[in-house]
């Protein structure tokens, strides 16, 4: 049995055993492969006609017409299509075949052809092939069997293409998340011993963790005694974020620095109350000015006398 994880793994790096599993998962048997291979010469005859009809159909849509505006592009794509059909009916489904399918999927993804368009076009294509088979192959039953075998392969193709779409999307999302979390949170030294940290944006756990580490290291390197965390720029605080803030403050305290939080907006305040966060533990002050006043008070209390 094939697990979801195996299906999700990179097709390009598929081992022979994995490819075998994938083929058997799609119930593609030797009989199918033989059947398809047996019409290789016939399909060679009709592939041009099918491809012509396919592009006539696609080009009747404005978007596609734009995409294949130049004659040379269209010719190149048609040649690619013919080559694809040759591979499909060649009966060899090895690593190279899978890598090629993945590459085509990527091209579609980059060109902005969504899954709906892709599968719709594929269905049209298979229909045309089916009609040709019905005409050219001995009996309707044989043609139907042939088409069934082709369908298995076509669906495997579509699965590979969809996989590529998903992977591409995941890569984009990951990149964006990384970008977000790498949004630097500057640690500013206002004066000797006093650090200001303006937190802006969303604090997810990844970002909160890196903020905590950056802060703790700054405490050490800048010899800070008081931290002012200004969260005016934080739009939403959930229990996880509140917890991260508390943890950061506690860790800072262990290193000998006091923390003050300023700039809690009304919505954030409401959210914190709802979660049940104790305001005194956060050591909050309404605005930055009062936060600084408190910071001065703490610092002078330790310095004087």
């Amino acid at each position, binding site marked *: 049995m094939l697990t979801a994880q195996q299906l999700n793994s990179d097709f390009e790096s598929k081992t022979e055993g994995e490819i075998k599993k994938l083929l058997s998962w799609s119930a593609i048997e030797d009989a199918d492969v033989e059947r398809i291979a047996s019409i290789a010469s016939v399909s060679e005859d009709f592939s041009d006609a099918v491809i012509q009809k396919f592009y006539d159909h696609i080009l009747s849509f404005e978007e596609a017409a734009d995409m294949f505006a130049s004659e040379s592009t269209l010719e190149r794509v048609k040649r690619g299509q013919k080559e694809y059909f040759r591979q499909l009916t060649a009966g060899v489904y090895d690593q190279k075949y899978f890598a090629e399918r993945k590459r085509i999927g990527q091209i579609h993804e980059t060109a902005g052809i969504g899954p709906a368009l892709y599968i719709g076009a594929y269905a049209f294509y298979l229909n045309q092939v089916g009609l040709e088979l019905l005409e050219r192959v001995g009996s309707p039953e044989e043609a139907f069997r042939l088409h069934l075998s082709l369908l298995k392969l076509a669906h495997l193709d579509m699965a590979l293409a969809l996989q590529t779409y998903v992977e591409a999307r995941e890569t984009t999302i990951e990149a964006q998340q990384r970008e977000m979390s790498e949004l630097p949170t500057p640690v500013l030294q206002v004066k000797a011993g006093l650090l200001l940290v303006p937190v802006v944006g969303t604090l997810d756990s990844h970002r909160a963790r890196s903020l905590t580490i950056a802060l703790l290291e700054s*405490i050490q390197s800048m*010899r800070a005694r008081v931290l002012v965390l200004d969260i005016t720029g934080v739009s939403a605080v959930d229990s996880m974020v509140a917890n991260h803030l508390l943890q950061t403050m*506690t860790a*800072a305290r*262990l290193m*000998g620095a006091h923390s003050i939080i300023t700039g809690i907006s009304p919505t954030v305040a409401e959210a914190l109350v709802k979660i049940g966060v104790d305001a005194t533990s956060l050591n909050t002050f309404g605005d930055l000015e009062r936060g600084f006043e408190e910071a001065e008070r703490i610092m002078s209390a*330790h310095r004087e*006398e």
Partner: protein
Amino acid sequence: MPETPILAHSGVLIASIQSALSDSEILSLRSQLLARISHKSVRGVVIDVSALDVLDSFATRTLNELASGARLRGAQTVVVGIQPDVALSMVLLGLTLRDAETALDLDAALGLLESAAGRRDG
């Protein structure tokens, strides 16, 4: 393993832990420090843990006990030099030093003890 040396400087005992201590070594350090508080006019105890890359629950508890004990004898305890990643992992483990003060380094700790003494005297 040599015992952690305890230095005394104008009413402050300073113990700098140089390498990871076993549970019994920590206990012995605690007893020694508490004993020293009684026969000197000690107002503060500073424990430097900057060389340690981990503070476990036992060490934390012992430090808390030391701080409470020292307070009963009239001395304030300051733990200094907790490293950033040590602080973070302590927080994640839910360990706090609620009975002891903390400071960045020895300098800060001595300043803290001085100002505390000033408040008490003045």
